[in-house]
């Protein structure tokens, strides 16, 4: 089931939104981002590394996030990503776009409820 959900995530741009949203709470490395998404989705969304890292590098190239090498609490050299101001603007617009889409989809899936005016 979890794996299946994971593929839904490949809807164009969704992973970008999740990454940007995750980074809103503070800078984080790739592993941390994947763990956070997993935890916040109640273990439903498991991000494939083969999707995560290309997405991170793509977002970095768009200058929505910025990367820096840091040393973690475990004395490990890790590459840490943080949201840029350009990324914050992007997050806002992506969020509103996503909300519109999910509302629209919900409307399509559940027309009666909408008519009854919940």
């Amino acid at each position, binding site marked *: 089931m979890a794996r299946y959900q994971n593929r839904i995530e490949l809807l164009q741009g969704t992973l970008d939104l999740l990454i940007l949203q995750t980074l809103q709470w503070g800078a984080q490395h790739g*592993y941390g981002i994947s763990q956070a998404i997993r935890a916040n989705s109640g273990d439903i969304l498991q991000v494939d*590394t083969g999707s995560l890292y*290309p997405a991170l*590098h793509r977002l970095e190239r768009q200058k929505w996030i910025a990367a820096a090498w840091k040393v973690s609490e475990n004395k490990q050299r890790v*590459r840490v990503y943080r949201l840029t101001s350009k990324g914050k603007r992007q997050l806002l617009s992506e969020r509103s776009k996503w909300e519109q889409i999910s509302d629209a989809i919900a409307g399509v899936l559940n027309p009666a409820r909408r008519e009854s005016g919940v």
Partner: protein
Amino acid sequence: MTFGFWRRRQRDEQLCDELQSHLEMAAQERVERGESADRAAQAARREFGNFALVQRVTRDQWGWTWLEALVFDVHYAARALRASPLFALTAIFSLALGIGANTAIFAVLHATLLRPLPVKDPQQIFHLMRASSGGDFAGEFSFSYPLFRRFSKIAERWGEVFAANTFASRKFGLDTVASEHVAGQAVSANFFSVLHVEPILGRVFEPQDDNVLGGNHVAVLSDAFWMRRFHSDSSILGKTIFYEETPYTVVGIAQPGFSGIEAEVSIDVWVPVTAAIEKGALTDIDVNWLRLLARLRPGTDPARAQAVLEAAFRTHVADTLLPVASPRWKTVLEAQHITVRPAASGLATTGRKYEKPLFVLLAVVAVVLLISCANIANLILARNTARRHEIVVRLALGASRARIACQLFIENLLLSFAGAVLAIVAAAWGTRLLLSLLPPKPFPLAFDLRPDFAVFAFTAATAFATAILFGLAPTLRASSENPEMSLRSSQQIAGSRLSGRLLLTSQLALSLPLLTGAGLFLETLHNLKASDLGFRPENVVTFELSAPKGTSEQRLHQAYEKIKERLESHAGVAVASYARPGVYEDGGWSGSVEVIGRPTPGEDNDVGLIAVGPSFFDAIGLGLLQGRYLNSQDLVEKPPTAVVNESFTRHYFGTESAIGKRIRLTFEPQIVREIVGVVRDAKHYGVRERTWRMVYLPGREDGSFYVRSNLNAQLLNGFIRAEVAASDKILQVEKIRPFESAVSDRVSEERLTAILSSVFAALACLLAAIGIYGVVAFSVSRRTNEFGVRIALGAQTGDIRRLVLRQTIPVIVTGVAMGVALALGLARVLSAVFAGMLYGISPNDVGIIVCATASLIAVALLGAFLPARRAARVDPMIALRYE
């Protein structure tokens, strides 16, 4: 580019580190949850997936920058070319030849005509040219000092006029014994300030250095001369040098890199114009010796400047010159006009002289390059046919057509730029070769031949245009392959060779005008050389003598007599004599004549004058028609005598004999001369000059020597130097050379054009023949099988040969026919250009066109015959097994 690769590798390493840290963190978390280190690491790896794959897909996100894509394509193209070295070398070599020839001609044009002067704002410099365009006196004239002053005053509000006169070879020394020669230039005092040339030491000329009563005797040296001659020793300032045996004080050194305003002469010493000439000559309105230039202030319209100066010139001519001019000189003056010509590159005397031939040659080499482009296009077409499979497979695998076209085009660019690099090397050599065809000057030519930005830009642009020309058609054709059709039969023979045939036709059509042109120029040169000069310059050596200033006439006269005697006493020397002014030197004398006791038949009584020593006519081989030659008895002028030529006799005496008639020359009004001889008409001033009415006077000194002998030149040169030194040791031999070369230097433009256009036409023919050979050979090799069958069925070798040749005939006939049409059309369009370049032949001469056509057909047939012969020799047994 290496920087890009280095950065890319660094990023690769960082990506690896990043992914590694992900794995480690995942494993560590599992360990913290209680798993064993081994199992944790394993599980983390499993969860992670294919490490290399993740790495690759992430790397893909970085994207290729266009530069990296280009580098990749260049690598690919270089690999493809290395795979077929014979093709690559052939193409690069022929491109190097074609682009090199273009670069060489352009570099010469650039060095002689276009390279801007190394001064501030050279585009503001203009040449005030006094010239007449038609008639006997067509050419450029100098200005007198009074006219210069007049122009300066008039131009004051919108520009500054400055004057210069270059003496390419002047005596120089540190004391009165002048043993060295330098290039000197007499300049107006504002010369340096107008050009914005600063001194690096001392000062340059200032207004007070010019003085009508005789300028300051001060000199400025060029930096190069100062370094070469005085090792940049600053103590030279204030010292006295002897220039033309006159003392001058060195006041400054001009800024490095500045060597005057003429590309061909690198000036060593500058002196003020007012100091360089006698006081009387300075104010004489008829002593024309200065060249004028001006710096126009920004915003000044050169056309307006020209109108103003022309008006001033007309006033000057009408008020001061015409009243004292002879009728002939009047017509010359009236034909002269002032032209304000942009002169950012200075006077460019040599460049302007050869401008027309050089531009014609530039057009010729451009056509040669076109022809070699056609060859390379044919090569590429053949190669692409062979590579078809590769291209089709790549298309089938999903490469876009644009991408394939781009890669093929980059291959072409690579070829043409490799050719361009070689071309620059070849051009450096070609430029020197070209300049060595110019007639030798008494000074070393100082052209700056280092290729600069303009030359590189020209070469790069040519290379790029070339790549487009030879590469566009084959590239488009190759990238429009249809993978489905082609993959089915990979062995399929290239369908239409139409484009190949078209290329051949155009090659032939382009070659014919080149051949015709070369024929015309060769014929012109031949006509000029064969034209009757009236005298025989073969086996004559000419030289000049220079004596220190103030040597008495008496001493010179004795020396000349003695040298003549001593030279004639040698076995092998037939006769030696002298004349002034020298024949075929620059310039000549003329004067008005009056026949005693007869009305003159016309207004124009100007005649050419030469003062000649005894036996001068024998020395240059000028034939006597009536009476006698001048001899040593005539030198004493008792009674005064003269010899005239046929034209003179015909003009003044008609069919009567001139012998015994008496004439008076206006420059010696008290002397009446008796005509003692009539000689043939001779062209003393140039092959193309009209024949002058001549008067030869007895002369005794100060001229050029002419020695007729059958000795070899080197031996004779040795004798001459020895005899001159033995006669009077103060005399120096100068400009010693065969008289023939003095004559042939007058046709140097025609010689340059004839030699180079023949070379390039031959090259064009060769290229066209190679083109035909290549195409026919290629089609023969494709049809080996068919020929085998034909031979097996009983075809004779002659049949096969005819079969192959017959197929090339339409191409040759169309090409040559188009070529003839093109040649005739060009002759019509360019008749104005040809007018001054041809002599004794019309641009659409039937003989030349027939010759050119015949030789082109012969060469083309030869190109086709070689592969045809090979086809006929095919062994049917081998041929049938061929595929």
